[in-house]
């Protein structure tokens, strides 16, 4: 063989093997950590230790924790408060601002290791599973519900706060200790009161003299600059506390920080730390309230005149074996109407209206309805009668009054010309109006 070739081959092999041995050495050396161990325990032991520690933190709070939770990855519903007490036997007790203030429901919880430590509510509790139930009992559509969580990874836990991250939504939830001497019932009632006092459709926000428009959907405020300026707006998600409105995280407007608004009784809500920033509700007139909301009808509140006509409705429905499930005056599907549900069939009979001053209204039936509404109007004789107390063949004029014109829970319609036609409508839902 050619000596030149052999030498070349030797050199190539020499280089190859040198490289190979260097590679092997470096691999072997790095696989052995000569720096020493970073942890003294194995990862599984560390998980068990963490779980024991978190269990202690959770169960040590004698009066439980306040969970401030914003379901769904875009937090489109805003935030909700649930009170939770953890026991060392794996059980929890919960109360919620969305339930009766005295309701307490029990279920189980676990702490598990799964790429971090998870807190999971693993048997059913309506108060927490409300946010994830696919049958959508509260908000959302069937099949998805509110897309909330029942599994939370624990990001940080101490006696003062626990920061959680929802497994599905990825949003941050926080638990803070409930004060030892505060009754759960009281906390919930005060939270409900803040909601009742501070919830409106529109507000103005005054930031050191500059005014912004604010609109609300669920528990989200959309703050936008005046029309002249650019179309920019900020969305702030919030929840209620006994003190007022608390934002998910502070926002900044004109360089000023806003983290929440204080509940007051004069309809002016200052920012938590800065009284030069105030949120003021745009309180509708009573007649505007009637048109914008949904005001429920019950037979007992129809007055002598109304009841006479509604007797005909009852007879007509009985004849076709149907039952009235609810009926209201207000805006539904964008139309101001008389809307009813007869054994599951929902229909609307449209109304025209005129505002007179702040507390008077005229109603007129223009012979317009949606499909179901028209169907019932044409085929169920009593449906025409049902409209008579409100307005049917001629316009009616009503004086309006309420328990509180700024925050009405009921509105009384007093017919200006028909003395016996006095109807009270309620904000809260009435089912089976003929039985109530």
């Amino acid at each position: 063989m050619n000596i030149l070739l052999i030498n070349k081959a030797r050199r190539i092999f020499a280089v190859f093997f040198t490289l190979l041995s260097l590679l092997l050495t470096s691999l072997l050396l790095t696989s052995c950590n000569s720096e020493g161990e970073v942890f003294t325990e194995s990862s599984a032991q560390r998980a068990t230790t963490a779980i024991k520690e978190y269990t202690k933190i959770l169960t040590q709070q004698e009066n439980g924790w306040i969970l401030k939770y914003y379901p769904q990855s875009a937090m489109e519903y805003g935030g909700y408060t649930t009170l939770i007490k953890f026991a060392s036997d794996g059980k929890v007790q919960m109360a919620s601002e969305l339930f009766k203030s005295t309701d307490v429901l029990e279920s189980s919880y676990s702490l598990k290791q799964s790429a971090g430590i998870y807190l999971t509510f693993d048997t059913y509790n309506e108060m927490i599973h409300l946010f994830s139930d696919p049958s959508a009992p509260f908000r959302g559509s069937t099949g998805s519900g509110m897309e909330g969580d029942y599994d939370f990874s624990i990001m940080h836990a101490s006696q003062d706060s626990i920061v959680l991250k929802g497994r599905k939504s990825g949003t941050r939830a926080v638990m803070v200790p409930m004060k030892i001497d505060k009754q759960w019932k009281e906390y919930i009632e005060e939270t409900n009161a803040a909601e009742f006092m501070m919830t409106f459709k529109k507000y103005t926000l005054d930031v050191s003299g500059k005014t912004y428009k604010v609109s609300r959907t669920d528990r989200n405020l959309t703050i936008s600059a005046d029309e002249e300026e650019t179309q920019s707006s900020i969305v702030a998600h919030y929840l209620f506390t006994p003190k007022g409105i608390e934002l998910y995280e502070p926002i900044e407007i004109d360089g000023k920080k806003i983290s929440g608004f204080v509940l007051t009784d004069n309809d002016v809500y200052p920012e938590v730390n800065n009284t030069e920033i105030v949120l003021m509700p745009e309180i509708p007139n009573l007649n505007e309230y009637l048109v914008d909301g949904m005001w429920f009808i019950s037979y007992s509140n129809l007055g002598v005149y109304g009841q006479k006509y509604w007797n005909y409705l009852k007879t007509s429905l009985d004849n076709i074996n149907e039952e009235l499930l609810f009926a209201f005056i207000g805006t539904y599907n964008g139309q101001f109407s008389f809307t009813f549900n007869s054994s599951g069939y929902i229909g609307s009979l449209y109304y025209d209206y005129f505002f007179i001053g702040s507390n008077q209204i005229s109603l007129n039936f223009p012979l317009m309805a949606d499909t179901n509404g028209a169907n019932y109007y044409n085929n169920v004789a009593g449906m025409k009668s049902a409209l008579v107390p409100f307005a049917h063949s001629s316009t009616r004029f009503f004086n309006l009054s309420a328990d509180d014109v700024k925050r009405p829970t009921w509105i009384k319609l007093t017919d200006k010309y028909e003395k016996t036609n006095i109807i009270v409508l309620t904000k809260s839902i009435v089912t089976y109006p003929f039985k109530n």
Partner: protein
Amino acid sequence: MNYIRKSILQGILVAFSVVGTGVSFSSCSSEELDPVSVFASETTEVQNDFDRWLEKNYVDNYNIEFKYRFEFNESDKSYNLIAADYNKSIALSKLIKFLWLETYEELCGTDFIRSYCPKVIFLIGSPAYDESGSVVLGAAEGGLKISLFNVNGINTENLNVEELNKWYFKTMHHEFGHILNQKKSYPTEFNEVSAKNYQSESWVNLTDQEALDMGFVSNYASSEASEDFVEILSIYVTNDAAYWDNLVSSASETGQQAINAKLNIVKSYCKETFGFDLDNLRRIVQRRSAEVVDLNLNLD
């Protein structure tokens, strides 16, 4: 040539010597086996009365893990699902034992049910809503796990055996049928009876009567042959003889013929492959279904 071989040899020796020292280097992390087991004593879940009852009645008897606590990793992540209610889980565990496990025990002995039963029963509180608008009742996976949905829909005050059958027991017999088929296949002649009529996903569009006339005991049975088989089995067994006879006779002539032919294959499969009489199974199920009203659905 010799030179090349020598170089190669040299190279290999060098590599081995490095490997040799490398071995001693890696042993510097002196990882001894930890005597403390991480699986043993330290269960992070606290055992309660129900867990203890399950240990005795499910694990010891049948080697079944009855998972009533919701675990995200056990669930089908394509659906939005929530946990089952604790008390309803207890009720269901008792119902399953009485109406299903003990039925097969009575029919074929403990060894039979222990060998063939799924090893995991997983409870889910909500139904699983499908895109097509239908709702999933149960799922069996490879014979090892059965998932039961809508546990929170159980009314423990007023046990409705028909509802229980619809949501749970027909489903369990249906899923168990799949398990048996997965262990030992049914004869291929079954597939031929209704070969031309299987609908796959369009089964949702058939009415009950249309399905019957095509030779299927339910519209779901028309989706494919394997579902057809277990629908026959589960519907036959969870209803009484009068119901079955009435159902079949309401089908068209050709429909009846197909159903009866397939039923015969199902019956002989049960007899020859697993040694039990389908009519016997039905008798036991029906008897226990009537007795269930007296069952204690609490832990005590």
